[in-house]
């Protein structure tokens, strides 16, 4: 098989299953690639080639004995550093957790281990998943493989960049307001935020518990479907996990048919603030979907204009509570000068030293929004807006099967460009945030390059809760129509580095 790192997860899995190549060879090839490019991309925070290769060898032995029948057995993966991995450093991109090794695995990690998927390591992210560029990592930014001077999106920029730079065929991300989808859009890859409750959150360090959802990242729709099928499903350890079968996402990806489907274009997410080239590619994709036999209509979601405001009250409120556990007492660093300081002084010094600027900003915003006297005006009002946004979706889904919009308003911007302007940074997620507020599922897939800068553009498909299969059905239909035009996937046009 030619360059192993250029293959899809599905191709690798079937070659491994047929014993044409070993998991060890595939894993080694990816570590060679990481050694070659990651100094420039900085997708990874932690790799341990020796133990990964040892694990790949174990998987090869199990396969030889016929013990593993998972459709992804032997294929490598990268985990966003927000997932607890037993005995393996887990920092969440924060200095406050430097050196911490969790005592247990996230359920997703256990499921993938059991499926014979081999971990390559942990990927870079905005600290505690707060950010849209991966510049807020405590360990330095990740660079976009399409242009190393640009951001790869965030917070899961490391997972997206690892996949886009062929350092890993697939990765796990988490999405609280767009952290899987926006990086996918900016790196020319595919990312899915499953239905809230569709994938276990056990062992995922919480940012905003009512919004967080982990999901798959890969270079094509089928690979995300295969990964989704492994990680999805009920988990008794997560009380918010939905106790229903996972929709058959793999069959839907194979079906790849939009004939007779009704697709709604969200009126509020395609005008002001959206880059011309992004809209041009989006409109072109709409034409393709129509040509493929879908009926496309425009729908209005009038409360979406308030989604960003509601989100930036709800998220900081939940985050300020969740992050109270990082106090230097039970895990991570402790800033103690030994001068008999009180516990409060040590906590304050630890948090001041361990947290970066964006995390502190949001903790204070959340503390303010939850303060007595402001609670109803801010947090209470935001929760009522959340209801209105959910109703907008419900009405839209009474008229159409899926909704579409551009995933992000612009293509990847330059590193440093928006770092000093939190508000400009927050606007990156304007199209992705409503989905998290309502708990729907959504996918971003590449639809071409913006004419003005040659950078990837993503299209977002949104489906109702527990209708994740519709994302894959529409996504793979559009993907294959675009691949026919381009003679391959968009990612094959990315610089070789």
């Amino acid at each position, binding site marked *: 098989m030619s360059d192993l790192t250029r293959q899809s997860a599905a191709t690798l899995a079937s070659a491994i299953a047929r014993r044409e190549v070993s998991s060890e060879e595939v894993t080694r090839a990816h570590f060679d690639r990481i050694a070659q490019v990651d100094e420039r991309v900085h997708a990874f925070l932690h790799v341990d080639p020796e133990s990964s290769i040892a694990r790949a060898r174990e998987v090869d032995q199990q396969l030889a004995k016929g013990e593993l029948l998972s459709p992804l057995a032997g294929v490598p993966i990268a985990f966003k550093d927000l997932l607890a991995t037993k005995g393996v450093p887990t920092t969440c991109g924060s200095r406050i957790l430097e050196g911490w090794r969790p005592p247990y695995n996230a359920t997703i990690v256990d499921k993938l281990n059991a499926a014979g998927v081999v971990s390559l390591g942990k990927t870079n992210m905005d600290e505690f998943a707060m950010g849209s560029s991966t510049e807020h990592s405590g360990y330095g930014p990740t660079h976009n493989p399409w242009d190393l001077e640009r951001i790869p999106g965030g917070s899961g920029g490391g997972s997206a960049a690892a996949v886009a730079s062929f350092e890993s065929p697939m990765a796990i991300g988490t999405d609280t307001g767009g952290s899987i989808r926006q990086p996918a859009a900016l790196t020319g890859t595919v990312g899915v935020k499953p239905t*809230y409750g569709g994938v276990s959150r056990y062992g995922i360090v919480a940012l905003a518990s009512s919004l967080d959802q982990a999901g798959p990242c890969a270079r094509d729709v089928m690979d995300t479907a295969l990964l989704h099928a492994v990680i999805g499903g009920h988990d008794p350890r997560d009380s918010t996990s939905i106790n229903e079968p996972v929709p058959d996402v793999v069959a839907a990806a194979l079906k790849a048919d939009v004939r007779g489907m009704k697709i709604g274009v969200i009126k509020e997410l395609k005008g002001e603030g959206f880059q011309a080239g992004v809209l041009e590619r989006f409109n072109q994709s709409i034409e393709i979907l129509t040509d493929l036999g879908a009926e496309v209509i425009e729908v209005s979601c009038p409360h979406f204009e308030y989604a960003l405001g509601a989100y930036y009250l709800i998220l900081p409120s939940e985050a300020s509570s969740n992050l109270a556990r990082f106090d230097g007492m*039970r895990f991570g660093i402790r800033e103690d000068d030994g001068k008999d300081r009180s516990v409060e002084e040590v906590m304050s010094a630890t948090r001041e030293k361990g947290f970066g600027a964006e995390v502190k900003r949001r903790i204070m915003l959340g503390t303010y929004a939850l303060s007595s006297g402001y609670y109803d005006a801010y947090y209470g009002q935001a929760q009522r807006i959340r209801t209105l946004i959910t109703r907008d979706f419900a009405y839209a889904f009474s008229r159409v099967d899926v909704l579409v919009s551009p995933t992000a308003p612009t293509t990847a911007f330059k590193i440093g460009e928006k770092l000093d302007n939190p508000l400009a940074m927050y606007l990156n997620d304007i199209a992705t945030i409503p989905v998290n507020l309502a708990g729907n599922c959504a996918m971003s897939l590449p639809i071409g390059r913006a004419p003005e800068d040659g950078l990837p553009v993503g299209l977002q498909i949104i489906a109702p809760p527990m209708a994740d299969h519709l994302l894959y059905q529409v996504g793979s239909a559009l993907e294959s129509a675009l691949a026919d035009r381009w003679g391959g996937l968009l990612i094959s046009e990315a610089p070789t580095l």
Partner: protein
Amino acid sequence: MTPGKIDSEQVKHLGKLARLELSPEEVADYTLQLEQILGAITSISAVAADHIPPTSHPIPMENVYREDIAVRGLEINDFASGAPSFEDDRFRVPRILGEPG
């Protein structure tokens, strides 16, 4: 206090509540930025929504129980290895009461 208006005293107070030992430069930066952010998001207060029920969680569920069966938890050593200070099977913490000794 007016919602949406933030001064440096409030930022210092928030820092104290949130256990963040902010530097004077941070107090100045956050005073500006928090006011800016709140100014941009208070547009939501313009929506007449008093009669709308709040959503705290996207899926309607309550009281999720499991069978009352004891399962083995983590071992003490699992916690010890990740703690900044650990002694006699306990987390060792700075003094929590009284004056400096």
